[in-house]
């Protein structure tokens, strides 16, 4: 273990960021973890105080401090509403990197980040292999939502109702694309993200169908790497930089106007976190340029292609829309996904009672703190059910996994869809496309 003095001096670099917190406590109204536990160490103010306690050597147990910092969804709700404008998530990312550098990650996790995640080919092969055998381990939980649960006692799965890996991943179905701009005169780079690729290829296919419909050329390079958020939020900045670099190398090979993703988390990571935490300081122009052209898919559709609400036939059916934190808090995108739902001509957005809130997924939080994640998610499921909608839609595959798990567990057979799936579906009805493949 490294020298504690060194840890303290590294944490001191956070000092300027930390003193911005005036300890007003207003974050108590925002933090989903605090809403469950009511404990000060779980709310932003407490976490920031504990961190400065460690920096000031008033606290002497970095492991305990780290454990508290892990009880955070990194949803950014507190930051978006903090009167003092404290850069909360920035502090947390940096602190996690410093602490995991000091404490060291568990070897198994390190192996995953350094060897597996950074090697997309190996990862894809392993997952394709896994998808063939998952039936042996899982059985159906809810036929409508399409969830499964563990057949045998499996600690990692616990009592989750999970979506299985897709039989054929997106990259197996569409290995790569490089099509010219059509009537829109635009070309986009497409970054589906891991979950779209491996669990929800139908989202990727929906995006491609929509792009084709609007005459948008697509650059989809093969062997895309993960956006890096799991590595960054675990403090593995080395693995993060390696992932960003691989993606930069891939995407800068093509020429395109915008980079779009159907994943709120990937969009926020690429647009906001890549430029901030990419470790290669000689490579800032590429990363800045790419980040500035990155957009959520519905933002692209609504703001650039000017897709608007469509006149439908008959009474539209209700779709409960869940605002993913990374769109709502980080990128301030809330209108565009609703526009895309309305653009289907068949669906109308039903707002959740009590307003938007985190679904409790939070990436690896769901794995490390499943109990808490579940309590938050069950409430979300109940609020979705309260709208009496027949479909729950959102803009982030990670949220979709959580919603599927929670709706399935709470016994609400409400299908979970990505907003682009709803829009893509309507394209068939209005003007049948020439079959794509």
């Amino acid at each position, binding site marked *: 273990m490294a020298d504690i003095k060194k840890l303290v001096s590294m944490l001191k670099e956070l000092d300027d960021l930390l003193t911005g917190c005036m300890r*007003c406590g207003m974050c108590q109204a925002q933090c989903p973890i605090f809403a469950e536990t*009511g404990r000060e*160490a779980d709310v932003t103010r407490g976490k920031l105080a504990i961190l400065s*306690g460690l920096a000031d050597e008033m606290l002497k147990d970095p492991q305990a401090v780290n454990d508290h910092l892990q009880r955070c969804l990194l949803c950014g709700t507190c930051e978006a509403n903090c*009167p003092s404008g404290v850069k909360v998530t920035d502090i947390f990312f940096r602190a996690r990197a410093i602490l995991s550098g000091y404490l060291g990650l568990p070897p198994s996790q390190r192996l995953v980040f350094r060897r597996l995640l950074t090697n997309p080919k190996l990862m894809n092969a392993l997952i394709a292999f896994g998808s063939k055998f998952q039936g042996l381990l899982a059985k159906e939980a809810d036929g409508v939502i399409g969830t499964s649960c563990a057949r045998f006692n499996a600690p990692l799965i616990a009592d989750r109702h999970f979506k299985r890996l897709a039989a054929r991943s997106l990259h197996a179905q569409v290995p790569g694309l490089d099509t010219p701009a059509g009537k829109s005169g635009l070309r986009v780079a497409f970054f589906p993200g891991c979950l779209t690729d491996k669990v929800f290829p139908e989202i990727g296919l929906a995006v491609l169908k929509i792009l084709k419909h609007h005459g948008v050329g697509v650059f989809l390079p093969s062997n895309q790497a993960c956006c890096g958020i799991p590595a960054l939020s675990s403090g593995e900045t080395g693995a993060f930089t390696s992932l960003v670099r691989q993606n930069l190398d891939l995407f800068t090979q093509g020429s395109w106007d915008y980079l779009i993703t159907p994943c709120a988390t990937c969009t926020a990571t690429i647009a906001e976190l890549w430029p901030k935490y990419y470790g290669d300081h000689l490579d800032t122009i590429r990363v800045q340029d790419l980040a500035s052209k990155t957009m959520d898919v519905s933002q692209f559709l609504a703001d650039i292609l000017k897709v608007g609400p469509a006149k439908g036939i008959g009474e539209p059916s209700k779709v409960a829309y869940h605002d993913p934190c990374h769109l709502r808090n980080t990128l301030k995108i809330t209108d565009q996904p609703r526009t895309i739902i309305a653009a289907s001509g068949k669906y109308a957005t039903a707002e959740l009672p009590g307003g938007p809130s985190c679904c409790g997924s939070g990436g690896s939080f769901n794995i490390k703190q499943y109990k808490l994640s579940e309590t938050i998610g069950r409430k979300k499921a109940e609020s979705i059910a309260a709208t009496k909608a027949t479909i729950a839609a959102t803009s982030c595959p990670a949220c979709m996994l959580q919603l599927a798990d929670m709706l399935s567990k709470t016994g609400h057979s409400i299908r979970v869809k990505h907003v682009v799936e709803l829009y893509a579906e309507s394209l068939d009805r209005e003007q049948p496309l020439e079959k794509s493949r």
Partner: protein
Amino acid sequence: MGESLKKEFEATVGADNVMTEPTELFSYSYDSAVLDKSQPDIVVRPEHSEALGKVVKLCNDNGLKLTVRGAGTNLSGGTIPHPGGVVCLTTALNRILEVNEEDLYAVVQPGVVTAKFAAHVASKGLLYPPDPGSQAVSTLGGNVAENAGGLRALKYGVTKDYVMGVDFFDVNGELIRSGGKTVKCVTGYNLAGLMIASEGTLGVFEKLILKLVPPPASYKSMMAVFNDVMDASRTVAAIIAGQIVPATLELMDNFTIRTVENFRKAGLPVDAAAMLLIEVDGHPAQVEDDAARVEAICKHNKAETVRVAKDDAERNAVWQARRDALPALARVRPTTVLEDATVPRSKIPAMMQALDRIAKKYDLTIGTFGHAGDGNLHPTILTDKRDQDEWRRVEAAIDAIFDEALALGGTLSGEHGIGLAKSNYLKNEYGAGTIAYSRKMKSVLDPKGILNPGKLLGPVLG
């Protein structure tokens, strides 16, 4: 804290509700006041009132210093625990027990969050007027213990005007009942009154009975812009002297206006020396009448413009600007010291002048906004506590602000309480006799001095 005591607490509130891990204890060493931290030995979180009573008794039996904590948003250090003492959280005692729509009262546990309560009551067509700026998180127990005020205080009064009864535990864990559900009640000493603003030093609230009122039928909001902060201050005094009682009468100085505009880009008049935000409410005819008179008084006192909000959207924009005052100021420098010296309303012009003088003398940035209508200003000093030289000037300026407020016949605190922050100044306002009387009372009710020691009355004697 010995193992066996910890076990007793665990048996009382459940093991999950007892915290002794150092990192966790550290998170209860502060509140919203700019003061030094101090850690408890144990933190407990009772889930029902019986356990709350037992916690109090357990503390007294063992001579443990007890600090009750709601949301910890007080600005006077009222929840900074005695080193090595016990912190008792009310966050799990958060049930609204009754809302009586016939008799217009509600019964709640102390940990209910103010805004949640107000929203619940509003859903039944009633109004709970006290609306402190912290209402999204503050608890009703904390509001009563600090006698919190809010934007509507001018017409509707402060928390004390809505407390009909307080049931509380004395140090022996005995449940003491006071007040009741009737509008009139003079049975015995006014113990409920004694509990208001007692800052956790006399008893631990178990249940509160709060008064509700019908909401006003209509309202009108306006924004008056001034070229001279003295004209704005004189307008405040003139409106009050004109015997008009707006629901809200708030002031923002030029520095605050500019900072808010910079933050929100709401189209505020950045060149204005000061702005008054005024809302009148009540019967529609009365509202029309009051609004016209307020406008006339503003104009008479050299208001540059008076703009009346046309609809709810405009009204919200005006109030958003006021709500943004603190957030916007807080972003300017790392440390934000929010004061709440209060003066008789006719003395607002003099106080504004004094604040200007003090800012210049100590070379500090002070943004002033606040509930001018009740004479309650929030001079907000923007500083960096790490700059030792500047911090010394801040401390001197705070002294000067209090001296000035008292000299004008005002008070040390309009709503934020005394706590640790101002206990040393108390004698300046009330004199030694008052402190001695209060201490005598406390020493009988709390002979071992376990209830929030050091708060309000200063260092515990003997």
